[in-house]
């Protein structure tokens, strides 16, 4: 939304600088996204009277001499004739002697081009080889008030004289605020200048003096309005206007400039009046052609029926698009034939045109919930629907329609008025104490200041010794509870005036998972691994490449792209993807890991009836030039990591068909199992097919760990041994696995009640041999005996 400061100042007496004003608006009313500076946009642009206009044969051009009120002399480079007139060429069809036009003097920038990269500067030009033309006579498009390039703008002689600056006449030296609409979602009243100005008065500590007009027109029963469902339309006012004369010739007016500054464009006198009133009051209006309306309905008198559309009903809108309505759309019908999409856009069949004799001005409110759906379903984001979806209050529909009738009075007179109200006005009082306000804000405002602050913006406050009974004005439909009042007081007086204080500290409990992840992060950095974050959404393709079934993933229905369509089931597939990217960069060797939440449909719902979630850690090790067995490095990482968390595990053959296991090659991967038999993860190399799908070099392995389970097992216990040790090396020739050999050693140690640490030495397998020579280091801490070694040698 755009707010002109000059327009604002018509309603509020502002004594602070523009800079302070904008800062205060930002601090106490709404987010100001930007300020458009138009203080020099209309420099050197004057009103001029065309004194002579001489058509040049064979061209569309007219040679004009214009009276610029003497300013021509002040401008260098402008020659005037003996009568003080300036010569300018004009190509517009409507140029004629006697008219007041707008002259862009040489040296001025064409306003419509000021925001372009190369603003267009007007000068003196020689035209048709012989005529000097100084500056230009401007159309509303060049002045940035319109987009249509048809004719030059004409100024009402009653408002201006030649030589006056256009900017002075229409108050164009202005600052335009760009307002972030989202921060006013709950304030429909601020979507009109009057409501906005009221708030500005409030934040400046001034009483807002503007009085809303009284209702003068009375509803007669000459036209019928029927609202089928009271929940879709709280109030519907229709004023019929009958033509009795011609509307005034179309001059460029101050009102046109207001529409332009607010980001709109002129259409015709009737539509412009409705748009202007919407910008002023926040209440959108719509005008129907009365005679077409009656004809469409096949009735003698208009029968306005407001109802929900039926699925599949069709309606052609003003922009010539035919839409298919649905049951959430509210439609205005003429005797049940849809003629407008309520709150969004009028219909083609009742459009105002140059032959329009009689009109119906609609001023109504509609359910914001329905209009929100309409907005989404049909993609309509007009100024009107933007206001309606904030929930316009119903109190002013009749007065705004009445204002519209007044604006059009020269051509139309009121013939009939209908005003259907479906819901009684509720006057709600909020009881609150000054103390309650101060307690929640942490302030010490007194009763007088609090009362004044609220009454400045239209609240009625009855104060009795610190107890306030507050009645909200009709336009504040958002005020219901004490906190709403507290917000008003805090905001209007400025949150920045609240002194920041600290409440008493108490001790905090850390989140155990969070602490575990911190520990792992520390450990993994020491182990030379890199922590990644990758998206929680993946493509169906990625899942399939990793051997996972997309059907086990929650699927996003409104995903940004197919790349982000599924919620991932485990971490490793995302890392394989990133491993490829990093190998290409190229990085020769790395260990990538991530800890994040994953979801699988197979896990079902938890006690809160939301999907079971697991915190998992995935890791992928990849090297470009290494022909040793990658599995063992991944396993080494698992061992190092778990050792730091004091978790003892075994590596057992991969049996389970978990989704996280899918990318792993069962013959070269293991389940990671704790001493008490719980599976806490998988480690291994990947299937060849997976590796090739991800285009990765041969040296590749990884793991996926269930951190929820690890959290339960991790502990700070640490056996510390400081004492004598006996170190021995042992080599066993065997065709057993390493695990079996260690088990056998442990059995012997147990027999002798000895305590020792076993660490790996080497595994040697002579060429052509089935047997391996497995060497280990044994470090005895207690119960060492040579007999033990002798027995071990026989293994």
């Amino acid at each position, binding site marked *: 939304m755009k707010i002109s400061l000059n327009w604002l100042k018509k309603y509020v007496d502002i004594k602070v600088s523009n800079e302070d004003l904008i800062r205060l608006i930002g*601090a*106490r*009313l709404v987010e100001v996204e930007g300020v458009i500076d138009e203080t020099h946009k209309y420099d050197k642009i004057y009103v001029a009277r065309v004194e002579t206009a001489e058509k040049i044969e064979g061209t569309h051009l007219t040679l004009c001499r214009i009276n610029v009120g003497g300013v021509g002399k002040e401008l260098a480079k402008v020659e005037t004739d003996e009568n003080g007139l300036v010569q300018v060429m004009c190509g517009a069809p409507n140029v004629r002697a006697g008219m007041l036009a707008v002259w862009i003097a040489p040296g001025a920038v064409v306003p419509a081009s000021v925001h372009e990269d190369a603003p267009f500067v007007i000068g003196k030009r020689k035209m048709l080889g012989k005529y000097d033309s100084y500056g230009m006579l401007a159309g509303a498009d060049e002045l940035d008030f319109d987009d249509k390039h048809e004719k030059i703008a004409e100024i009402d002689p009653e408002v201006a004289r030649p030589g006056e600056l256009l900017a002075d006449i229409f108050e164009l030296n202005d600052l335009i605020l760009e307002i972030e609409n*989202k*921060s006013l979602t*709950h304030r429909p009243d601020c979507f009109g200048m009057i409501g906005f100005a009221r708030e500005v008065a409030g934040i400046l500590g001034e009483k807002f003096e503007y009085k809303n007009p009284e209702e003068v027109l009375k509803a007669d029963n000459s036209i019928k309005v029927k609202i089928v469902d009271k929940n879709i339309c709280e109030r519907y006012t229709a004023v019929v206007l009958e033509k009795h004369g011609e509307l005034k010739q179309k001059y460029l007016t101050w009102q046109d400039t207001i529409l332009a500054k607010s980001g709109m464009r002129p259409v015709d006198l009737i539509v412009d009046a409705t748009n202007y009133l919407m910008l002023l009051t926040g209440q959108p209006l719509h005008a129907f052609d009365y005679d077409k309306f009656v004809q469409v309905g096949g009735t003698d008198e208009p029968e306005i029926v407001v109802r929900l559309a039926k699925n599949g009903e069709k309606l052609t809108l003003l922009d010539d698009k035919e839409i298919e309505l649905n049951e959430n759309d509210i439609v205005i019908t003429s005797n049940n034939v849809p003629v407008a999409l309520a709150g969004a856009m009028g219909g083609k069949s009742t459009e105002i045109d140059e032959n329009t004799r009689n009109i119906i001005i609609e001023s109504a409110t509609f359910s914001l*919930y329905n209009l*929100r759906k309409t907005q989404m379903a049909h993609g309509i984001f007009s100024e009107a629907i933007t206001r309606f979806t904030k929930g316009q209050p119903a109190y002013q529909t009749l007065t705004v329609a009445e204002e519209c009738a007044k604006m059009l009075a020269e051509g139309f007179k009121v013939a009939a008025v209908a005003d259907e109200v479906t819901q009684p006005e509720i006057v709600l009082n909020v009881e609150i104490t000054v103390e309650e306000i101060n307690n929640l*804000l*942490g302030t010490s405002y007194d009763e007088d200041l609090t009362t004044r602050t609220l009454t400045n913006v239209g609240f009625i406050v009855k104060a009795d010794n610190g107890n306030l009974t507050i009645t909200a004005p009709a336009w504040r439909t958002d005020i219901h509870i004490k*906190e709403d009042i*507290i*917000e008003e007081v805090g*905001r209007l007086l400025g*949150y920045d005036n*609240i002194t*920041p204080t*600290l*409440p008493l500290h*108490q001790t905090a409990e850390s*989140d155990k*998972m969070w602490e575990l992840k911190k520990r792992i*992060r520390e450990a993994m*950095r020491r*182990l*030379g*691994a*890199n922590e990644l*974050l*990758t*998206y*929680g*959404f993946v493509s169906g393709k990625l899942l399939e490449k990793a051997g996972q079934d997309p059907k086990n993933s*929650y699927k*996003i*229905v409104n995903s940004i792209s197919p790349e982000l369509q599924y919620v991932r089931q485990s971490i490793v597939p995302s890392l394989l993807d*990133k491993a490829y*990217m*990093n190998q290409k960069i190229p*990085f020769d060797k*790395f260990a990538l890991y991530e800890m*994040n939440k994953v*979801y699988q449909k197979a896990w079902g719902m938890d006690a809160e009836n939301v999907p079971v979630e697991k915190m998992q850690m995935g890791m992928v090790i990849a090297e470009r030039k290494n022909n*040793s067995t990658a*599995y*063992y*490095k991944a*396993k080494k990482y698992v061992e*190092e990591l778990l050792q730091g968390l004091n978790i003892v595990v*075994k590596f057992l*053959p991969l049996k389970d068909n978990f989704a996280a296991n899918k990318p792993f*090659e069962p013959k*070269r991967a*293991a389940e990671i199992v704790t001493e008490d038999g719980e599976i806490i993860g998988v480690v*291994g190399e990947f299937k*060849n*097919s997976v590796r090739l799908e991800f285009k990765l070099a041969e040296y590749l392995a990884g793991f996926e760990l269930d951190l929820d389970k690890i959290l339960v097992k991790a502990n700070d216990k640490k056996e510390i041994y400081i004492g004598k040790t006996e170190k021995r090396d042992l080599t066993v020739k065997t065709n057993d696995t390493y695990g079996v050999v260690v088990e056998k050693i442990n059995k012997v140690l147990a027999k002798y009640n000895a305590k020792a640490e076993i660490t790996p030495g*080497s*595994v040697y*397998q002579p060429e052509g041999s089935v047997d391996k020579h497995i060497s280990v280091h044994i470090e005895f801490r207690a119960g060492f005996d040579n007999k033990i070694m002798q027995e071990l040698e026989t293994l």
Partner: protein
Amino acid sequence: MAELETLKQELKKINAEYAGIRDVPAEKRAEFGREINARKQEILAKIAAAEKAAMDVDVTPIDITAPTAPNETLPEVYPQSFGSKHPLMQEIDRVTEIYQMMGFDVMESRQLDDEFHMFDSLNFAKEHPARDGYDTFRTEEGLIPPAHTSTMQHRALKKYKHNLDEGKAIAVVIPGRVHRNEDVDATHEHTFYQCEGVYVSENCNMGNMLGILREFFEKYYGQKLNIRTQPGYFPFTEPSLEFMIEKPKTLGGKKGDFLEMLGCGMIHPNVLKMAGIDPTKYHGFAWGGGMDRLVMLKYGLDDVRYFESGNLNFLKEF
């Protein structure tokens, strides 16, 4: 393997059949070709699947219990100099540490949640246009990858309600990953991190909220800061504010250069009520802000897309 052979034979047969198209009457050739081609595609798909399966058949098993493969040296982890922590995680750790020092418990936000926690429990009226401001993703089941960490407020209030009975405050921060359906560019990501704060006690006020937030940012940036607010709108707080800090001098900030850091406000009574807390007895405040921006500001990063890029050139800097 035998299956693959059979399939290849079948493909040969089809190719041979196709050669017979010359003998088919002209008007039937198109149909004939279509039919053969469909069969051929089917076989090719089967061959691809079989070849993929074959790749995984001829694999040499290893001793998964061993420390290394025969005749290979024992594996070693990479040197510490290779290692890095993700900057976002590192900074969020720092953020939670500061809040912990200030007496806040920590819990992490969910990444897949429901309409109730994301909207209903936060006083968003059903179908209210305010819900549109969040550009949420949805799953087929109507679940929502949360668009803000406020999705955890209701849970946090319920979890720590006992604090109030014990005469203490509820004080908790909730970091986590959130998602919004936004086009990605240098300053927008569909995936980012937020940190929520919730504080409830018998007599806390807005001054306390501003005090805690200022304290946090001063600790985080290690210097005194000017703060500023502006009114905002969130259905779950009343009053609602946007909280700004003057850009720290150490990060190249100039006077009057204010940055929006988070949204905050006094918790709406309906939100407390829904979590079973008596809003006539207790008040609270809450806030939530993006972590990515905080970190970008700290390190002078100009593109939010680095964070989830997985690019080691970037990550190894941390």
